[in-house]
């Protein structure tokens, strides 16, 4: 069994940033395991621009953004193994992996950074009735076909869900000569960025049908068309509002789910609202020496924030193996108050904070003029500036300085909440 100080599972943006940070913090015995043939993760297929504004102050495409981190990995001579699928992680941090050259391999890690990313919600999770014919893909699968494999999934396209990948694919398919007939969204608002709605749909006169969903799928072998209907305030289809759209391709862009099978095998506790590991301010999970960052922890909007978060996880994993990571105090739970969903971190050690802790979350709804507030045991200690608008499609964050926790003997809980102007 090979012994590794910091083992990083996943070679996408999170894994790359975590490895670089761990190496820079002085860990030499580290290894990245990646199941695909190349590093870079999902960025490889995200050929559109818009990445890197926060990190590099310029607008890069996904492959360019990934390459910057891959170049740094090479420069630092960080070892990585592609084509390697991790099968399980034990609570004792034994990692079992398989690849075509080595066969089955086991590693004993001192620390692990979970950086497996997320996956798309599939058709099965939606309960759409109708035939199980060919021509129905998740938007990301279609993106992979078009951008990496070089073939087209179809010609006449309907998109269900208005997540960013679906919007990006509406434009991409249009560029490749497809007719994109509609983007159908169950909710009264899109979960995608405004910029993508304008530049991927409006620019090409693709209708965004809010409060609509697909209620039937026609076609035995190949998709022939979908029936869509308007929904009421309870998201139920309104009888009589059905219309049929002829198409040979249906793309699903209906949400992302952190990929945590390995985390569960290691005994890592998951949070209900994020569907990712419960972590403290050092991105440590409940299993000693196992850290998590990126979309496996909570689904981000911007890769730049994934890189920043993962760099922290890498540095904290390094500190852990160097014996500097032990806690001297009890963790305090962070509670999600009004309007706050999927808040990370879920635990903090107020007495040990040396720098501000950043709470990231998604607003539960669309709010105008809302402020982010932080309470300690019910007493308001921080009141943010009002935001003109907050929406579930854009992650919100607030930083809390360590001083705000000072001078208290015990802290029972910290609450992050929104306050909406009456």
């Amino acid at each position, binding site marked *: 069994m090979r012994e590794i100080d910091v083992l990083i599972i996943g070679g996408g943006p999170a894994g790359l940033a975590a490895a670089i940070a761990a190496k820079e913090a002085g860990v030499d015995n580290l290894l990245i395991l990646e199941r695909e043939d190349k590093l870079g993760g999902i960025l*490889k297929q995200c*050929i*559109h*621009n818009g990445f890197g504004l926060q990190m590099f102050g310029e*607008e890069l*495409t996904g*492959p*360019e953004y990934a*390459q910057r981190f891959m170049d740094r990995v090479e420069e630092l001579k960080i070892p990585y193994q592609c084509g390697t699928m991790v099968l399980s992680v034990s609570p004792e941090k034994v990692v079992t992996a398989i690849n075509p050259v080595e066969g089955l391999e086991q590693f004993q890690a001192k620390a692990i950074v979970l950086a497996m990313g997320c996956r798309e919600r599939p058709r099965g999770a939606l309960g759409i009735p109708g035939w199980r014919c060919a021509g129905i893909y998740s938007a990301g699968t279609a993106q992979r076909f*078009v*951008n*990496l*494999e*070089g073939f087209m999934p179809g010609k006449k396209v309907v998109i269900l869900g208005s997540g960013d990948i679906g919007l990006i694919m509406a434009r991409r398919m249009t*560029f*490749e000569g497809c007719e994109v007939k509609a983007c159908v969204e169950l909710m009264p608002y899109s979960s995608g*960025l*405004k*910029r993508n*709605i*304008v*530049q991927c749909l*409006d*620019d090409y006169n693709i209708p965004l049908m809010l409060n609509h969903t697909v209620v039937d799928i026609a076609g035995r072998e190949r998709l022939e068309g979908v029936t869509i209907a308007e929904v009421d305030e309870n998201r139920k289809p309104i009888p009589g509002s059905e219309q049929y759209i002829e198409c040979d391709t249906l793309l699903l862009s209906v949400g992302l789910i952190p990929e945590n099978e390995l985390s569960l095998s290691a005994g890592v506790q998951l949070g209900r609202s994020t569907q990712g590991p419960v972590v403290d301010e050092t991105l440590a999970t409940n299993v000693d020496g196992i850290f998590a960052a990126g979309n496996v922890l909570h689904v981000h909007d911007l890769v730049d924030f994934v890189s920043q978060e993962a760099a922290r996880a890498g540095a904290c994993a390094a500190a852990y193996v160097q014996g500097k990571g032990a806690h001297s105090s009890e963790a305090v739970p962070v509670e999600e108050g009004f309007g706050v969903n999927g808040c990370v971190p879920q635990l903090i050690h107020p007495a040990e904070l040396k720098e501000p802790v950043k709470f990231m979350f998604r607003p539960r709804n*669309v709010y105008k003029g809302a402020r982010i507030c932080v309470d300690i045991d019910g007493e308001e200690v921080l009141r943010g500036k009002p935001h*003109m*608008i*907050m*929406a579930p*499609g*854009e992650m919100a964050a607030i930083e809390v300085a360590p001083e705000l926790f000072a001078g208290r003997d015990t802290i029972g809980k910290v609450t992050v909440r929104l306050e909406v102007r009456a």
Partner: protein
Amino acid sequence: MERIITCIGCPMGCQITVTLDEAGAFQSAKGNTCKRGAEYAKDEVTNPTRMVTSVIAVEGSKQPLCVKTARFIPKEKIFDCLKEIRKAKVTLPVHIGDVIVPNVCGTGIDVIATRHLQ
């Protein structure tokens, strides 16, 4: 003449009404909540630009090459730009930043590679 522009600056998505004179020159904007909105609306009616990204099939490579316009190009040239990209011949190896289509559609802007391909 009036045109309605959806601002992309934030999730607010203000519907900004832009007034143009007969020559199509910008007169005024209303409906914006912030200054950035007015600036965006002005640019969007007088000189809308976009970065174009696409892929090209490459002989000798299973994977296509992804490319982008090195800067934003006029919006009305998007489809002509895509046509020129499709016709481009690429020889391996290619590196990030290599010029694939020089001066695309006479814009003075190059289409460049956004990945390495051996």
